[in-house]
Structures are given as structure tokens and as C-alpha cells.
């Protein structure tokens, strides 16, 4: 019969076959209307080809950090979930306290607006004073868009 490694090999085989079948079936069923954006290499909305010195939204990092923290914390729940029944109600309570603290962290991020993608533009006070003195506010965003359009062209 199959050894332990043999079973793993069957799993790998199944995984490969499943992906191939799914891709083939999708190709048969789906409509095909390719556009330029759709043909790009998949890279989470960033430009995948070109100079690496591009502006990169810092909120990616915030989201990544929040994800990482919760991911690691959830890993800590697995050993608890496997053994808490041995400790009775007290063991359940320990996990509950942990989850409540975790929830507090979530509430904190929510309330502070770290989960919102659209946030008010925070400009340093020095820039504000320059803008106030000039009275004709610079249109930073517009000029940026112009530059990117020029590059594209």
C-alpha cells in the first residue's frame, strides 16, 4: 500500500490536476475581452515593469503591518483551541481575555482610521504656512497627475 510519503505525493498530484482542470474549464466557459490593463502582470495595482523609483503608497505598509500582527496573534490561538477543554471553564476564560485584548486592538485601528483607504491629506505645518503666505495654494495633486500623464505619454 501507500507509504506516508506516497499519500503526500497523491495530494501533490491532485493539487496539480485540480489547478489544470480549473484553468481549462475556465478557459472554455469565460468570455474573452482582453484590455491593456487586464494583460498586465498581476502586481496588486502597481506598475510591474519600469523603474523601481516610483512613488509607493505608504498605506500598503500600514495594512501589511496590521495584517501581520493579527496573523501572528491568530497563530497563538491554535494551541489554545486544541487544549482549552482540558482546563475547563478557566481555560476558556484565558482565551476569552486574549481575544478581548485582540478585539481592543482591532477597535483601536478602526477608530483611529487606519483601516480607511481614503484619509484626509495631512500636510506638515511648515507647508501650511507657506501656502497661507502665498495665498495662491499650490495644486500639488494636479501637478503630480500631470507629471505621471507626461511619463505615460
Amino acid at each position, binding site marked *: 500500500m501507500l507509504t506516508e510519503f506516497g499519500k503526500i505525493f497523491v495530494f501533490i498530484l491532485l493539487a496539480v490536476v485540480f489547478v489544470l482542470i480549473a484553468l481549462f474549464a475556465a478557459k472554455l466557459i469565460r468570455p474573452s475581452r482582453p484590455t491593456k490593463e487586464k494583460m498586465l502582470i498581476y502586481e496588486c495595482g502597481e506598475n510591474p515593469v519600469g523603474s523601481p523609483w516610483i512613488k509607493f503608497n505608504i498605506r500598503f505598509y500600514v495594512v501589511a503591518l496590521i495584517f501581520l500582527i493579527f496573523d501572528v496573534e491568530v497563530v497563538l490561538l491554535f494551541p489554545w483551541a486544541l487544549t482549552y477543554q*482540558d*482546563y475547563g471553564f478557566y*481555560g476558556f476564560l*484565558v482565551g476569552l481575555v486574549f481575544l478581548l*485584548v485582540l478585539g*481592543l486592538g482591532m477597535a*483601536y485601528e478602526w*477608530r483611529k482610521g487606519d483601516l480607511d483607504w481614503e484619509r484626509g491629506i495631512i500636510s*506638515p*505645518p511648515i507647508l501650511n504656512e507657506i501656502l497661507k503666505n502665498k495665498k495662491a495654494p499650490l495644486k500639488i495633486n494636479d501637478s503630480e497627475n500631470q507629471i505621471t500623464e507626461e511619463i505615460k505619454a
Partner: protein
Amino acid sequence: MDLSFITESLYFVKPEIAASASIILLVLLDLIFHKNKTIIPYVALAGIIITGIFVVDQFNISGFAFLSTDNPKYGMIAVDNFGAFFKLIIIISSIFVVAFSAYSDEINKITDRLGEYYALIFGMILGMLVLISASDLILIYLSMELLSLSSYVLAGFTKLRDRSSEASLKYLLYGATSTGMMLFGISILYGLTGSTNLYIISAALQTQSLNLLTLAFSIILIFAGIGYKISSAPFHFWTPDVYEGAPISITAYLSVASKAAGFALLIRFIKTTFVTFVDDNGNWQLLQVFDWESLLIIISLLTMTLGNFTALWQRNLKRMLAYSSIAHAGYLMLGLLVFSNQGLIAILIYFTIYLFMNLGAFFIVMVIANKTGSEDIDDYDGLGFKSSFLGVSLAIFLVSLTGLPPTAGFIGKLYLFIALVDAKMLTVAIIALLNTVVSLYYYIRVLKHMFLTSPTEKTEKIPLNFGQIAVIIIMLIPILLFGVYFSPVVDLAKSYITILGF
């Protein structure tokens, strides 16, 4: 299966539980009172006082909490009088720092982030409380990281100022490197002895024959981590930049509380791991596996000489006080390197006094910077004439930091030097004494600017409100009182030197 080993331990960690509960409460209040945060400093103060009550409750209680699974005789947390004394120092300095923050313009400008500010201060308190009583290398490392991470953020809390961000980044880089080295040292020590508990390591060192070179390597690496926390040379390079860039209330906190926790850790690490017994005269018998005495003598003399001589050139008061706090780390180490109860008593006395004099000096620098916006020594010209109360108080704190009678600083240095002379280390005592003479120059230079230079047109009278005067007077009284009537401090220190296991 039961969890009684955890529930029984909770009795010994009441201060730590109170500090953790305060963090959660502060974050909750920060979320509830989104707009108006005036309540938060009061809640923080109440939290510190409750933690302090639990700490006082721990006096004269000793025992292990969170017992080790390999050897239930020992635990991860050792509660004893020595730890309780240092915890009290942490609590008192935390109360002062909350008072400082209430009067600091830097902190009052960022009212929308007050909740984070106090929650992070409680993060530091929790880290320090655990660090002081930890007797397990893993717990030492964890609490040190908690303390460091909170202080990295606090050092850069006024984030719109370039210097503050620079301080935070430099602190993070130095901190990450030295805690990394410490972790490496811990892993080697664990590999050698097979345990992370200091008491079990001590037993292993006494019975097994180990490779002494490997042991020395791991000890030096661990010492690098602790030396960074107490800012001893050659791990002191972060101190001036961080102290200068951080908000002054945080600088004062780092220079007293974080240093006290580091010293408590160093003393506990050496005494539980490397001391076999204490003889009738109070001398510690060291294990002959590592030459702690030479290492500490070299580091101590290097630290105080570097600190004092570099302070001579500083024109920024915050930077000068940073170098002076490096020098004081050197003086404090003198009490440890004699390896006797007498030296430990001297350290406890010195820390009690250092708490008041260093916080006092920083508070006055902060009050002046609130008004003038500068810490440059030239801006202190003629300050003694315009604001005489501030001038005289700063003079007293600086004279006390130098160690001249009749201030309390003299008593602190006296006990350290007596301990050195009794241990027949005359050369070390003379070098330390000469260092004190050097330090006289830069402390007195501030007095010269305040009292012997006539006021320029830039010098303004600095207005003081009742609260600020009260804070200064509360710190002045111990400095003047303990300078002439010091037996209460000495008696207190004598009864709080017991470390569990001896």
C-alpha cells in the same frame, strides 16, 4: 490538568497586573473620549498610584512565581525586597514624569495622541517592573524588548520635529543591534548549561566544568545588551543623540527609570548567577568562571571618564545632562564592582538621590525651554537675576549632581567611595574622585552663566505657576534634607538588599 501553577503565581505579580490593566483602560478611554482627552493624564496617574500601592504591598514578601517545570524550586519571577525597592524607584519617577508631561509644552501640543503617550509610558512601566524581578533569561529578553519598543516610539513622539525622529531611529538601530547580541549570548549560555533559569544556570556553573572561553563570550554578549540599557561605555553612543532629540519628559524618564531597571537586571544577573554565597562580612564570593571584577572596573572607569570629558565641550544643556548621566552610570557601577553588601547599599542610596536630582535638573531645563524654546547654555545668561527661584533650584540640583556637601549627592558619592576604600581599591577610588573634579567644571559653568553673567536683552523672566513650583519643591526637599539628615535613606537601603536565594 489544572492551572493552579498560574493562579497561585498571580499573588506575586499584582503590580504587573495593575500596570497591564491600566494600559487596556487607557486605550479604551482614548477610544471613548475621542475629542476631549483631559481625563487621560489623571487616569494614568491613578494607575501608577495603584501599581505603587501593590509594590509597597510587596515589601518583605519573598517567593518565586511561575515555577520552572524542570526544577519547581525556582521560578521565572523572583519577588524580593531588592526588586521591590527598585520598583518603588520606577513608580516614583513615573509619577514625576506624568507631572512633567502635564507641564510640558511639547506634550501639550499633541493632545490628540495623549492616549497613546500614556499607554506607551505604561508599556515602559510594565517592561521595567518585569525586568527588575525576572530571573529567567527568556523573560529578561521579552521584558527588555517591551521596555525598548515603547521607548523607541516615545523618543520620537513629537514626530514633526526632525531631531525627534532622528533620535527615535538611532535608538531603534542601536537597540536592535545590542538586544540582538544579547539574544545571541543567551542562546550560547543556554547551550552551555541547558537552562534559561538563572538559579539553575548558577547550579550548573558550580557543578559542571564548562569551556570558560565560550562562557566568557556569551557573558560579554549579554553584558552588551545590559550595558546599552544603562548606557555604559562602549555602548553609550546612542545616549546624547536620543536624549537631545526626545521630548524632555521622556529624556528624564529614560535617564532615571530605564537606567534603574537596567542596573537592577545587571545586579540580579550577577548575584544570582555568579555569586556562590555571601560571607559574614557581607562580601560576595564569586565563582571562578569569569573575571567580573576586571571587566566592571574597566567599563566603569571608561564610562565615567568618557562621560565627564565629553560633557566638558557641550553647549546644549540636554546633551550635557546626557553625558553626565553616562558618567553617573560609571559611578553607580563602582558600587557593584566591590561585590559586597556595602556596595549594594551604596547603589541603592545613590539611586534614591539620583532620582530626585536628575529629574529636578531636567524639569527646570524643560520649564526654561518651554519659555525660551532653547536649551543652549548662552540662553541661560543672567537667568539667576531674572528668575531667581529657578536659578537657585537648578544650582542646587547641579551641585548635588557634582557631589558637593551639603546636598544629598555628596552622601551618595561618600557611600560609594567608602565601599571602594573598604574593598581596598584605592586606585579606582582615586580615579573616580579625579573624575568628580572634572565634572565640577561643566556643572559649575552653568552656574557661571546664570549668576556671574549679566542678563542680555534676550533674557526674560520665566513665569511659574503653582503646580510647577510645587513639583520643584517636592524634588528640592529630599536633596537638601538627605544632605544633612541621611540616616533614614541609609536604614531603608540596608533593609532592602536581600535578593532571593541568599
